[in-house]
């Protein structure tokens, strides 16, 4: 039994627009929106740690990038395994294991020291990838020709990894991520996460093994970041060292802070905004102007809308009477 609030109608409208976009939009737009979906998944994964638990990490590029490299290495450089199910699961597993590793080590410390450990990991993996051990990562140029083939189910060919197919796949995964995140937040687990954010010592005193919860969150975040990395590799058909660099992690942080942390739509809005700025402004005004806009956006938002765009959008909606 749904109450037809105005907010719900807006959601449905947006959903419908996104659902039917590939039918009337050109390839460029589809590519852009798909990219935004993927960054959205990454941002949500990041926000689980940042917005809901108060953990700042620069290590997400490792989950994102190495999962993509897993795809690249399995399908191009080391083996010739093209089966998308295998590579997808492998990427997820890589994300999970790296989440475990980085989560475990970084939680030896707290606060900025923990942040530094995640940064160090990102840098280490970046250097590893760049140094191209045994030729498996192709160093600076990255792994090209990354194209997972369609899924063959019975008589049907599902081309899920390019064009419109990829669009709907990423859209679906984004929605799944939202639902899962919402479920976590509203569960008892979410309460513990919130507790960790507000007052970790209190939870420790109450007997919670805070560290285990943090590591668990890292693993989940790692899995979804890894999925995002895999999808991005499918979209761009290339895996680059850039994806593993700490700058990607920093960019994710920026997307989340800009869009509005600790919310479902905030990170997604942030991702769309970054892509819009990057692609539209650069085509409208040429060259590097988009960087000024982006930099300016960061500065102005922090000056005037420090809680992220989504919180203010929400406030505006509420004041307009839309709940």
């Amino acid at each position: 039994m749904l109450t037809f609030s105005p907010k719900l109608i807006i959601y449905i409208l947006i959903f419908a627009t996104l659902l039917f976009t590939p039918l009337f939009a050109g390839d460029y737009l589809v590519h852009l929106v798909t990219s935004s979906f993927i960054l959205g998944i990454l941002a949500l994964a990041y926000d689980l740690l940042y917005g809901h638990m108060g953990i700042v990490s620069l290590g997400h590029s490792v989950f994102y990038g190495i999962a993509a490299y897993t795809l690249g290495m399995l399908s191009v450089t080391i083996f010739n395994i093209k089966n998308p199910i295998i590579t997808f699961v492998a990427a997820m597993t890589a994300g999970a294991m790296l989440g475990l590793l980085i989560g475990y080590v970084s939680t030896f410390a707290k606060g900025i020291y923990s942040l530094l450990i995640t940064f160090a990991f990102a840098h280490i993996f970046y250097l590893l990838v760049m140094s191209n051990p045994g030729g498996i990562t192709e160093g600076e140029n990255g792994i090209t020709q990354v194209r997972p083939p369609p899924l063959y189910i019975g008589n049907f060919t599902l081309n899920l990894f390019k064009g419109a197919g990829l669009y709907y796949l990423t859209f679906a995964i984004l929605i799944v991520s939202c639902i899962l995140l919402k479920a976590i937040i509203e569960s008892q687990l979410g309460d513990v996460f919130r507790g960790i954010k507000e007052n970790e010592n209190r939870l420790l005193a109450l007997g919670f093994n805070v560290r285990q919860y943090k590591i668990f969150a890292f693993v989940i975040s790692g899995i979804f970041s890894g999925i995002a990395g895999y999808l991005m590799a499918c979209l761009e058909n290339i895996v680059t060292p850039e994806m593993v660099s700490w700058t990607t992690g920093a960019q994710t942080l920026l997307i989340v802070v800009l869009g509005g942390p600790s919310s479902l739509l905030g990170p997604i809005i942030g991702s769309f905004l970054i892509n819009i700025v990057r692609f539209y402004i650069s085509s409208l005004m040429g060259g590097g102007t988009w960087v000024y806009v982006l930099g300016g956006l960061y500065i102005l938002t922090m000056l005037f809308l420090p809680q992220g765009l989504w919180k203010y959008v929400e406030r505006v909606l509420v004041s307009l009477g839309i709940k």
Partner: protein
Amino acid sequence: MTVGWELVALQIFNGFTMALAYTLVALGLSTTMGLLGIVNFAHGALYMMGGYFTYILASSMGFGTGLACATSLCALLGIILFLCIYKPLETRSPIQVLVALIGVLLIFEQLVRDFLGAEPKMLQIPFYLSGPIVFNLLGSKISFSKYYLFITVVSSVILILVYCLFHRTNIGIRGLASIQNKEVASLLGVDLTKVGIIIFVLGSILAGIGGGLLGPVFSIYPTVGGEILGFIFVIVIVGGVGSLIGTFFASLLFCLIRSIGCIFLSPNYVEIIAYCILIAIIAFKPRGLLGREKVLD
């Protein structure tokens, strides 16, 4: 492969020189971080501008004067940044300040790309500083780079001056005190805004000089600031935020690892080892090498 001790000696000297130069930049970050409470990304921008200003000015007024003027310009930039960005954001959380400062860095990088071009600029070492100096040590000839010696001398002088500033003058002591405990300092009559400006300007000067000095070594390009920031950040945290001596030793540790490691391994692997050591240090001794610096939240 047998390694002659001359090579090791040379690399130790080189590492030492780099450590001094990096300490300059790291100190600037350490003091501003101690006051701001978060990684000051604009510091990278100032480092880069130090390099570019020196490059532009050196051709018309010579290297030495160019470096001095470039540093003053960076100090000016520092004041502007403090008043326009940091002060208005005083009440925001550290991450929010961080995001704004990243915005600043991005803008500077793009400005430089647009007005000066994206290709790396080679900053020329003036002829009187270029070339080797050959020493006779224990029967062997070792040639050190004259320019590296120049860096060593200049950095040492500046570091000694900074130390004296912080430990001998009232204003420097108040600066250190504010870094260690802002609230108590204000209770003792210290005007935190004034101290903030001074420390920020000092940090800008250090970043600018570092950028100018290291310009000929690494060449100058738009992302040089962001790239060095990671390494400097590591030095600051391991050395202990706000600790002058700790920063120097951390810098020495990592620069020596780098320079000596490079004899045996490729640079990438040396850095990987350095960062692994970093992780180990932080995981087991999180309060920095000397274990007594201010703890950031």
